[in-house]
């Protein structure tokens, strides 16, 4: 398997406060990497550093062997290859679903409206949103918006998808529909990095897990191994907090 994305010694700080410290890992093609860790451990920042939304102080991010530079004029080009879905519903409120979907492929990638529209409608149907193309985001539920956001990043044909706690602001009954969709994408062999708090979901979908704490990778291992017998005490404690069979 080819390495798609590689991070080397990423350092990130806000002023004096160090957010990420010497973070290195790589993602292989078709792999699902889940990043776990307590709140404030730097998971989301890590994702944002990958596509240059946050500047890094040291280290490098390589996409298919080429370094991504924050100052680079190619950053918009690189970002098209890295699809990102955020926690907050980030659709553009002044555009209909279809226009949200068409914007980047047509304006940035200069593809024809007809071609993208055809693909967009197909994808909408697939995620169960047939007939919603002319709705505005405020007419959709949170789960529907998040599915549109996922379709929007898929339309750019990215090499890797980043999911940043995409279910964190959803009502419980909507979490499922979004997670199912991400699960399907994983089965298709898409490369993704997922930051999530849904441990059951992580267990079901991850190929590999990175456990992050205080901006450092504490443990990195095969997903099955990680959930069955974590190597570090810290990861064990973290998993135990979520293990309700020990409650009582």
């Amino acid at each position, binding site marked *: 398997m080819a390495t798609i994305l590689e991070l080397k010694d990423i350092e990130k700080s806000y002023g004096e406060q160090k957010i990420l410290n010497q973070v290195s890992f790589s993602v292989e093609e078709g792999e699902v990497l889940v990043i776990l860790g307590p709140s404030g451990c730097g998971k989301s920042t890590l994702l944002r550093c990958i596509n240059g939304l946050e500047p890094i102080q040291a280290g490098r991010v390589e996409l298919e062997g080429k370094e991504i530079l924050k100052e680079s004029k190619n950053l*918009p080009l690189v970002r*098209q290859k890295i699809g990102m879905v*955020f926690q*907050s519903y980030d*659709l*553009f409120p*002044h555009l209909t679903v279809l226009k949200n979907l068409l914007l980047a492929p047509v304006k940035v990638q200069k593809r024809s409206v007809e071609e993208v529209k055809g693909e967009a409608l197909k994808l909408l149907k697939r995620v169960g949103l047939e007939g919603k193309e002319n709705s505005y985001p405020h007419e959709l539920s949170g789960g529907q918006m998040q599915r549109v956001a996922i379709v*929007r*990043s898929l339309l750019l044909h990215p090499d890797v998808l980043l999911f940043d706690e995409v279910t964190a602001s959803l009502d419980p009954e909507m979490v499922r529909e979004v997670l199912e969709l991400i699960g399907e994408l994983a089965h298709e062999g898409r490369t993704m990095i997922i930051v999530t708090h849904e441990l059951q979901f992580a267990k079901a979908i991850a190929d590999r897990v990175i456990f992050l704490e205080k901006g450092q990778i504490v443990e990195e291992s095969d997903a099955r191994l990680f959930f069955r017998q974590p190597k570090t005490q810290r990861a064990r404690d973290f998993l135990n907090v979520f293990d309700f069979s020990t409650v009582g």
Partner: protein
Amino acid sequence: MQVSGLQVLFQGNNFLRLLKGLLVTINISLVSILISVVLGFFFGFIMVSRFRVIRFISQIYLEFIRIMPQLVLLFLVYFGLARTFNLNLSGEVAALIVFSMWGTAEMGDLVRGALTSLPKHQIESGLALGLNNRQLFIYVVMPQILRQLLPQAVNLMTRMIKTTSLIVLIGVVEVVKVGQEIIEANRLTVPSTAIWIYGLIFMMYFAVCFPISRLSVYLEKRWKE
């Protein structure tokens, strides 16, 4: 037979003169609104500058213009500048300067408000989709701030049009001034002229401002979605 105030309205070219006065009012309003919109946009972006000093200076400007009654500003520019710097400004030019300064400040503040209320993740999701800065501005930022801005900007327009009535006090012959002249001319013969003239002026302002105000309501409703 005694001439009534209503008749004075249409005596000679009185009505036409009032209309011409209204045109002066509209002219000064429109030009200053135009200047304010253009400069106000720049001012709004200056107000959200990364540099604290620039933000501070622009804030001072805004507060200064807001606190000063427009009349005092008019006097300051018209009489103050004329005396101190020996600048002989016509009343119209002084009015344009003052109303543009005021409009720019208020418009800038509206632009600033719209810009700062735009959620950060809107920008980020645009960037994450690979939009460059120019595309981000055209397709994401501008449409959203315009929607937020327009109803309030239209509202500002009506305020500016109304306030131009103050320029009668620096000798500009606009609609109120023409009215006063007509009233003055008929003061002794037809005392009821005043109510008719001012009534008509009221209707004229109403005719100009009401459609604009409705437009604002319409835009607000339409874009609420």
